[in-house]
């Protein structure tokens, strides 16, 4: 909050550097030196790659089960990660599960990034009544606890992938509007924006060329941390039975159907949750790394 109180001279010194290749290079070279972030990114890319090439790295049949081979332990020949309660291969289902889990985790953030980010830029750039209208409307959505709103929307729309994505998108939009609005308001009266306006550039061009590149840092950092939450919440909705219906394999639903198996194969039953945990942690670590590399301060 005290950032709005900095003196003009000070503000000029702390002003974000003009966008350009040099800045992107600096951020990249800093990221490359940050071992934790590089490791998190590698793990995340590995999971994405497995999801994309699922038919190549598995037997390609996530729904094929055998009543004779139910709940085999980890390390069974032919089933390196064991089998689930219907005798389906765990490795195959986990890899295919990554597809649905990643989509249901990432899509809401992307939707919120587009809609929420857009509204936030408009609110911050326009100021005045437009700002009041947008921000007060967002306050109402902000008044619902996140998980509660997601569950309520999902319950109303009925179970499914689309419901999960829309429900979580609605939950994330208000917070992204807030972050973007704060960032935009902060740079709105900076000299380079003023200069662009004086030289007769229209508002849309200013937003695209001046505002967007300069608020990208804090917004991306925030979006990455939202993605970690999104993966958990999407799995949670699925866990409650509000996600994709069986036999579709996503991690939340696998965790739910293996719940009874904790008495027989506790480590096997823990696997889907482990995947959610790892993916979510990757997003959190990448968000932290990005924050440090881009010199983003909390708003």
């Amino acid at each position, binding site marked *: 909050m005290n950032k709005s109180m900095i003196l003009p001279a000070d503000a000029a010194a702390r002003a974000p550097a003009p966008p350009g290749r040099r800045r992107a290079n600096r951020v990249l070279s800093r990221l490359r030196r940050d071992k934790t972030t590089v490791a998190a990114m590698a793990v995340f890319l590995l999971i994405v790659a497995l999801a994309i090439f699922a038919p190549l790295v598995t037997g390609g049949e996530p729904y094929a089960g055998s009543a004779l081979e139910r709940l085999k332990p980890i390390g069974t020949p032919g089933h390196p990660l064991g089998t689930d309660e219907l005798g389906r291969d765990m490795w195959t289902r986990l890899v295919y599960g990554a597809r649905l889990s990643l989509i249901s985790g990432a899509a809401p953030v992307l939707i919120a990034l587009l809609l929420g980010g857009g509204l936030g830029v408009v609110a911050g750039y326009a100021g005045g009544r437009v700002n009041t209208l947008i921000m007060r409307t967002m*306050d109402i959505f902000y008044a619902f606890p996140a998980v509660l709103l997601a569950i309520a929307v999902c319950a109303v729309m009925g179970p499914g992938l689309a419901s999960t994505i829309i429900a979580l998108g609605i939950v994330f939009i208000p917070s992204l509007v807030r972050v973007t609005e704060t960032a935009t308001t902060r740079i709105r009266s900076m000299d380079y924006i003023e200069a662009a306006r004086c030289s007769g550039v229209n508002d849309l061009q200013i937003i695209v060329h001046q505002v967007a590149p300069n608020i990208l840092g804090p917004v991306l950092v925030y979006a990455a941390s939202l993605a970690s939450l999104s993966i958990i919440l999407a799995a949670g909705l699925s866990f409650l039975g509000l996600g994709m219906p069986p036999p579709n394999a996503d991690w939340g639903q696998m965790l739910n159907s293996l719940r009874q198996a904790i008495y027989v194969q506790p480590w096997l039953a823990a696997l889907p949750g482990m995947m959610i945990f790892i993916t979510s942690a990757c997003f959190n670590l990448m968000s932290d790394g990005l924050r440090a590399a881009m010199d983003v301060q909390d708003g």
Partner: protein
Amino acid sequence: MLQFLIRRSIQGIPILFGVSIITFALVHLMPGGIVDSLVPPGAPPGLREEIERIYGLDRPLWEQYLLWLRQVLQGNFGISLVTGRPIAEELVAALLNSFKITLAAAVVGFSLGIAFGVLAALHSGRWPDKLFSLFSIAGVSVPPFWFAILLVTVFAFQLNWLPAQGMGPEGIPTSWTQWRHMILPIATLSMIPMGVVGRVVRAATLEVLSQEFVTALSAKGLQMDAIRRHVARNAAPTILAVMGLQFGHLIGGSILVETVFNWPGTGKLLNLAIFSGDIPVIQATVLLLSVIFVILNLGVDTAQALIDPRMRR
């Protein structure tokens, strides 16, 4: 200060209005709706209209909303379609059960978070700091419902120390038989607040410590204790805001954890209502929890303004 409180309360009214409209609209957008869940298939043709008349569903939507709002303001949430009992009764009982674990989880999570955060800030860059940052990342990345299952596996199933499910005897927890049911839910729920509060406390403490007035105070020859008091007072508003928000999320987010532990709170009530299509219960639960969330935020704003007069804009 009183002026601030009045102004903030007035600002809260349109928000509450908006919340009530969204809650009302949400449920009326539901495919099927109340009538379909009440009318048995193959019922005589007049029954459907009769039910619509009794529940006031034949009136215009805005009239239904005003009618519903008036009843809600009088504390009447209607009757559950499934149990046939007044919703207010069931909801209050469930809310108190939820408070048992969420309040305790907030106390545990916040105290651990503050302790770890301060410790990490004071040893910034050394091993306690690094250990804690690992801990807090894990805390915010772990899916609570999975962590709950892990705890049950280890402490209920393998070690057989604690019960896996249920709440035990009703009432304010005083005895061990009541507390032992609460330990695992509290441990699960306190993870996220611990991680989030810890990170904020660490950042806030570091920022205050780096400010000039701290150096000035020690130059003035102030005792370390007195300096700590100043640091705490300056870092408090930010930390309070985060704690308020986290407590709200605990209440709203306990639904998943309550499901795993079969805990008879608002989460379980909502879960049952969703899968039995008990619309009035869904409506009442969402509305009440959101109103609590709004009031909580008002409380946090007030507390911040009490500590820091600059916030009384």
